[in-house]
């Protein structure tokens, strides 16, 4: 075998340069058209009238109220789903019981149901004409067209994110370590805090990031239950829509840019988390397995 024939063989194992360039160009072009361009458009449109106009659009009381409501909603929905998600994943991954497949399907339900339908469910149950409507009205409890409804709808829509992230991870890890902890005398809590939680740490952080992003960005379900009361029940995505419908393009894009910024920050955090995780893995990579000569 001569040197040149070895090289010729290696070249044949991959596609020709033209094909490689074409595929790369298609991928990059697609990304530019559908991801980079819209994102750039948001910021360009938002800043079209200058920084002061941008700033005014954000300072406007209704915009501030929308930002506040979005933050409150996420602050309630994410911790709730954190607890639910960990509990559900723990159940499904570590125990065998009847109806496990059903529970798994149920967790996925919010993914498969249209957000509008999710919102309608709450209107049907808690609305004035809904099942519990009269009782709620009697006791002066407002759920639909108020903050509780928005939180409920958001919790529903973002429910699967953390559980879905954790189930495969916990299933792969098995329950040997938990059993080992129990044999060594650890209580249930100690086992959870010292063994289970550290093992799922990265998956959990990742799930929380995704859950938070969706909680802040949810439109459909929230739109149905919100009632669009300006300054009261408008979240950021709803506020953007209202502004846009009122031909306040610049203001709409200014608020939208905040959401886009959130998405970017989320991605940065996610990348940082993954990078940190990888670094930790690398730190535990191969070291000489032998006793050092002394």
């Amino acid at each position, binding site marked *: 075998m001569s040197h040149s024939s070895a090289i010729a063989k290696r070249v044949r194992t991959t596609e020709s340069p033209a094909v490689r360039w074409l595929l790369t160009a298609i991928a990059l072009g697609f990304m530019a058209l559908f991801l980079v361009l819209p994102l750039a458009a948001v910021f360009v449109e938002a800043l079209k009238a200058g920084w002061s106009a941008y700033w005014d659009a954000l300072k406007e009381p209704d915009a501030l109220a929308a930002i506040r409501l979005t933050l409150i909603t996420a602050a309630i929905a994410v911790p709730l789903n954190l607890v639910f998600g960990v509990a559900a994943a723990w159940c499904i991954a570590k125990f065998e019981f009847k109806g496990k497949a059903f529970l798994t399907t149920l967790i996925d339900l919010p993914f498969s149901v249209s957000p509008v339908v999710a919102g309608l469910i709450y209107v049907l149950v808690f609305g004035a004409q809904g099942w519990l409507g009269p009782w709620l009205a009697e006791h002066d409890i407002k759920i639909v067209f108020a903050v509780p409804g928005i939180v409920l709808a958001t919790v529903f829509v973002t429910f699967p994110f953390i559980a879905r992230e954790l189930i495969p991870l916990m299933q792969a890890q098995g329950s*040997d370590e938990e059993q*080992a902890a129990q*044999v*060594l*005398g*650890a209580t249930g809590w100690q086992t959870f805090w010292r063994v289970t939680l550290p093992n799922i740490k990265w998956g959990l952080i990742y799930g929380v990031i995704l859950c938070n992003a969706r909680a802040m960005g949810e439109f459909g379900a929230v739109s149905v239950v919100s009632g669009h009361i300006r300054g009261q029940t408008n979240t950021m995505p709803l506020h953007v829509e209202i502004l846009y419908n009122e031909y306040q393009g610049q203001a709409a894009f200014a608020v939208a840019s905040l959401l886009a910024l959130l998405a970017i920050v989320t991605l940065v955090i996610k990348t940082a988390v993954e990078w940190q995780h990888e670094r930790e893995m690398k730190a535990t990579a191969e070291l000489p*397995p032998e*006793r*050092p000569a002394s």
Partner: protein
Amino acid sequence: MQITSAQKHFFWLFFCVLCETFASSASGIQGIENMSIEIRHVTKHFGSFRALNDVSLDIASGELVALLGPSGCGKTTLLRIIAGLESADAGSILFSGADTTDVHVRERQVGFVFQHYALFRHMTVAENVAFGLRVKPRRERPSDAQIKAKVHELLSLVQLDWLADRYPSQLSGGQRQRIALARALAVQPKVLLLDEPFGALDAKVRKELRRWLRRLHDELHVTSIFVTHDQEEALEVADRVVVMNKGHIEQVGTPQEVWEQPASPFVYGFLGDVNLFKGRASGGQLQVGDWQIAAPEHADALDAEAMAFVRPSDLAVAPYVAGAPGLAARLDRALLVGPMARLELTPREHPGQILEAHLPSDEFRRLGVKEGDTVSVSPRKARVFLETADDPAAMI
């Protein structure tokens, strides 16, 4: 995972270091309190599968017992029930006479070494070993300094103190195994339970660790039970071997007893290679074709279906002489690797059967036969079992 010469070295040095450890140790691993175990009529089902069927067994204090059997025989289930990781459907487990059936696993004071070690992957080796001490209730928990000293002592015991700051993923299989053992010993267990302790290791490390475990046990004298499917391992390491099959105990005895006097066809077949001859037993004789095997223990059998078990090393091979007693067979293959010659033979009368015979290589050379020749085989020693309702031959 390689055993280096340095590591080999320390296996041999192990005793000296161990003695030193004990001499210098104040907190004292030798303070392990001992415990006998009684297993009373334990039954366990998984769905419709019967994993254990009325199993009873006594284990004396300080004994090292092997639960031996094929996969699915219930040995691991039994071990997990003793540990409290599973609960029995019926029956009870007594530790030193006290019923522990309803005692929670964390109160049982057992050390359990998992098949795949189950080391805490996010903790260093030292943190792993310290875990059992750190989770103790505050009033029982030793001080940080005491824990540190204890961890160091245990890591020295398993000869891995230099790995204290590593993570489990950085260790070889054999090292993980020993760390898992150190972690289990940290809480001064009264019983040590090991699930396939050498199952995930390669043959060489396995052998070294086997010897190591035996020595460790001789020093610590903690009542220990280990599960294995490897008969060689069980026979080499254990004081007593419990042979299990299909959820019940086939035989309990010292390694020598179970090897020399297998109680059932299953034990015979499971503990090493065996040749099987089927025939009919009558008046203390087993008739196999035109060939007879003495079976004095079945003197009162009357034309009963029976089988003779003959170990390959108990099968005598001689050059064929027409008319002489013995079974004529063709020598198909002779493996001459090592000190024993392993022969594969096909009986002339039963071409479907393959017989195995082992004899010293020198002796085989003296016979002067080669592959393809016809030889005469006869058993020097045989064990005859009458056939029972369920076909024992199928179990082998």
